[in-house]
């Protein structure tokens, strides 16, 4: 077995070890390269900034705990921007597994920093089954779909919800998601009711969403942890996404290195195979 063959059959545990080192190294040594802004993130930020202060907006927590590293920093940055502008925020989720808990935990934590009051400045609607019906139904009246908030308080008892009947009272919908729900916010809510929608999604989903940004159906887009780091930079605070960019950078570089080494050994073996056949 020559060198290239040995290299191509390397024990996968060595690869795992290198990935583990690449992830943990930035925890010990801060490298911190500046995060460049993409036009899509800038557009999303500008869209929220251009809304009048005290506007009522929707912020959705449509993600599972598995993608918290990518999506939660987006939610936190969005909340900071919105609360800073004194916006009234209605949160909801189409994810039964933990969605309402994540929304509750994140929103209350950020709201506390800004001295916001539940029921007046923000409301958590929680979860309701069958998202297509939920999204469509709220176009008529939110109260028909959510008679009460996440804690069971009737909506009519919450001062913020007394001002809001349906999408016509919502100035902007900020979707943070790790699944295909963004498509429905676009096709049901944006297309049928005209409410502007912006999205923060996982890196895997981002390529699909570019087509909606191009068509104007999404006003802006955040893709993965890099998108979250961009938004943190725009909102001017350093959160977990900015700190996580070092680890993500090293792992990306490591994977590129693996791809290159794998291909060099593949080409070398193919050449030596051809020579052997001659």
């Amino acid at each position, binding site marked *: 077995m020559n060198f290239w063959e040995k290299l191509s059959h390397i024990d996968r545990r060595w690869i795992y070890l290198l990935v583990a080192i690449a992830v943990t190294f930035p925890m010990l040594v801060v490298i911190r390269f500046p995060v460049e802004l993409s036009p899509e993130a800038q557009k999303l930020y500008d869209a929220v900034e251009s809304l009048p202060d005290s506007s009522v907006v929707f912020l959705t927590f449509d993600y599972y*705990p598995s993608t*918290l590293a990518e999506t939660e920093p987006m939610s936190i940055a969005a909340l900071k921007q919105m609360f800073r502008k004194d916006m009234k925020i209605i949160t909801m989720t189409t994810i039964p597994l933990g969605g309402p808990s994540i929304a509750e935990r994140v929103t209350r934590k950020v709201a506390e920093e800004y001295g916001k009051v539940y029921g007046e400045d923000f409301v958590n609607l929680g979860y309701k089954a*069958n998202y297509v019906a939920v999204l469509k139904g709220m176009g*008529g009246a939110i109260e028909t*779909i959510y008679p009460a908030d996440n804690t069971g308080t009737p909506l009519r008892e919450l001062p913020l919800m007394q001002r809001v009947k349906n999408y016509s009272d919502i100035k902007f919908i900020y979707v943070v998601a790790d699944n295909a729900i963004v498509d429905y916010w676009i096709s049901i809510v944006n297309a049928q009711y005209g409410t502007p929608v912006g999205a923060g999604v996982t890196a895997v989903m981002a390529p*699909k969403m570019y087509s909606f940004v191009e068509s104007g159906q999404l006003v802006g887009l955040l893709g993965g942890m890099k998108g979250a780091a961009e938004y943190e930079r725009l909102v001017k605070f350093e959160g977990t996404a900015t700190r996580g960019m070092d680890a993500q950078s090293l792992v990306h570089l490591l994977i590129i290195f693996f791809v290159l080494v794998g291909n060099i050994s593949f080409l070398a073996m193919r050449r030596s195979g051809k020579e052997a056949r001659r």
Partner: protein
Amino acid sequence: MRTTVPVVIAFISGMIMVVGFFFNPERSFLGRVEEEVLQWVTIVGGFTLLLGVVSIVRVNSKVVKQKKAGWIFNLATLISVFAMAIPSMLPVTKTSNLGSVIYSIFPESWGSLFGTGTGSIYDWLFNYLDAPMMATMFAMLAFYIASAAYRAFRARNAEATLLLVTAVLVMLWRIPMGEAFLRLFSDNIPGYINSYIMNGVNVAVQRGIIIGAALGAASMSLRIMLGIERTYMGKG
């Protein structure tokens, strides 16, 4: 009868949604009917969740009873289901009938442990067990992707080489270090990747896929409404 009734229900429900789309729910009878049907859908959706729980309990308890291989994991599933579900469904105050019974036995301060609010048992289990476990499972993908990239991502032909080069460029563009590296060659490279790869080639391909999938979904919906497609009833 067992076939005709579901087909008629599917047709009427589908037609209400299609026709209702064109009417304002506040100003027309059809719009109001559509709104009513949507409420039904969320209620039926709630019952399907219950059906899911019943199914999980039935399947897993059968395995535990018969002590089949790996029954301990099925038992863990059952315990997890009840540990999450029961405390979250218990009333947090004594205002309801069930609440008055529970808080005549237990102190009222226990109310904070029930429901789904901050500090409840459900909240604790979710934040400290469920969320970290799901995040761990997802994080492990990085290790598998690295290993797969090393073994399988090969420039075997022109198409694979094109894919490989594009992937490397996009991966570099998505990280601050990579972007700084690309700028060493030209300040315009990150912008070109965004304009030509992500907003150019990528958008063209994604639109093709989205339009194709939408047409497929529309034709499938039509087949279900007209009773041609009956697999949802367990028929071929």
